[in-house]
């Protein structure tokens, strides 16, 4: 079915605009048109379908489900829910406080918050359509493992020592009270009544327009960078310089990803181009995850609930995990 996008790009770039498929500009533009149209079409279909399924899942229900679980199970569940639960990044503070005051350990809350930007279901499906099952599973698995390890480590270090007063208060409250369901939001919990298909359609429709409105420019930027790599970086240049998976190239890729800020959806086309250019899998994934997760705006926001020491620790933790993960994947994939 993807052949149609290629045919469309042929028609637009080569026939209508009259560019030659032998020139770099022609090739780059063709890649750009094909990939953007393909990704846009995929996004609309996928966000709608996921919205339909997800209409009844919300953070309140996740919180109630996680409250009172044993830690070992909790890390996995927290990271798993982080991967599929949508919330606008400006909600991450209330989510953090809400989980904390429900008596959920800091580590489980962090597993949830760490995994959330790294993996979102739209990125996963996009990855699957572009690069196949194996890479998608690797990506998802890595994101969840990093979230779980990060959470477990914070609990080990008793990270609650480094919370801001506001969050510390919420934490203390959560530790005193047995985990309970919050009563004044009960009226909102539509969990009791299953949604009918019209409500699901409404939710899916608004999700689609909202998410698409948010990510389309990222996709354009991402594909643009991919197209530029594709058309203007001499074929084999990246491979010649990075193709061996030299050990230093992985931390370098992670560091380069820090100042770049993109969301997971926009980074996928870049990931695709880097792999096509012969950059090893570990280096590519390290770069992309660092771009998505190690972003300063997010961290500045978390400053409201965490002290600098804890933030720095988290940041270092992320950078180290991305690097180690990159090395492991390079070893495995280049062996």
């Amino acid at each position: 079915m993807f052949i149609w996008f290629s045919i469309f790009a042929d028609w637009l770039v080569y026939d209508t605009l009259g560019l030659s498929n032998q020139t770099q500009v022609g090739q780059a533009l063709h890649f750009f048109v094909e990939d953007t149209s393909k990704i846009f079409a995929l996004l609309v279909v996928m966000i709608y379908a996921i919205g339909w399924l997800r209409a009844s899942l919300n953070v309140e229900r996740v919180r109630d489900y996680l409250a009172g679980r044993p830690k070992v199970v909790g890390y996995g569940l927290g990271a798993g829910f982080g991967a599929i639960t949508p919330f606008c990044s400006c909600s991450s503070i209330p989510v953090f406080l809400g989980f904390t005051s429900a008596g959920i350990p800091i580590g489980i809350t962090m597993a949830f918050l760490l995994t959330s930007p790294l993996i979102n279901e739209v990125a996963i499906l996009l990855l699957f359509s572009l690069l196949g099952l194996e890479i998608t599973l690797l990506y998802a698995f890595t994101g969840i493992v990093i979230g779980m390890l990060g959470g477990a480590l914070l609990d080990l270090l008793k990270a609650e020592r480094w919370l801001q007063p506001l969050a510390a208060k919420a934490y203390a409250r959560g530790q005193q009270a047995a985990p309970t369901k919050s009563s004044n939001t009960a009226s909102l919990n539509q969990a009791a009544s299953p949604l009918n298909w019209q409500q699901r359609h409404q939710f899916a429709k608004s999700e689609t327009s909202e998410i698409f409105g948010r990510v389309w420019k990222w996709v354009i930027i991402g594909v643009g960078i991919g197209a530029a790599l594709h058309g203007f970086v001499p074929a084999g240049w990246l491979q010649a310089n990075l193709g061996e998976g030299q050990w230093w190239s992985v931390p370098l890729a992670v560091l380069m990803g820090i100042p770049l800020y993109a969301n997971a959806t926009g980074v996928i086309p870049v990931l695709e181009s880097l792999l096509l250019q012969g950059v090893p899998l570990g280096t590519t994934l390290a770069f992309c995850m660092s771009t998505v997760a190690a972003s300063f705006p997010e961290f500045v926001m978390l400053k409201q609930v965490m002290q600098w020491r804890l933030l720095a620790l988290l940041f270092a933790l992320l950078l180290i995990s991305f690097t180690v993960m990159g090395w492991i994947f390079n070893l495995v994939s280049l062996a």
Partner: protein
Amino acid sequence: MKIEILGSGCKKCTNLAASVEQVANRLSLNIELEKVTDMATIVDYGVMSTPAIVINGTVVSSGSVPSDTEIEQLLTQVRNG
């Protein structure tokens, strides 16, 4: 009636406050609208996904930006309460 919009001040919350005000004006309701950005207050309401609407101290919507029609329903429900 007293309406509070809970949120950290992101674009969604601002839009929501504007629509609530519009709808209230259209229904010629006398409302007192307040934007709450203080996290402690938001958490005290038990809200985790912003933006949320609180009418007279009760959370009536959270985690989404309701359509004008939905806002109208919420307001008239309280008015006829």
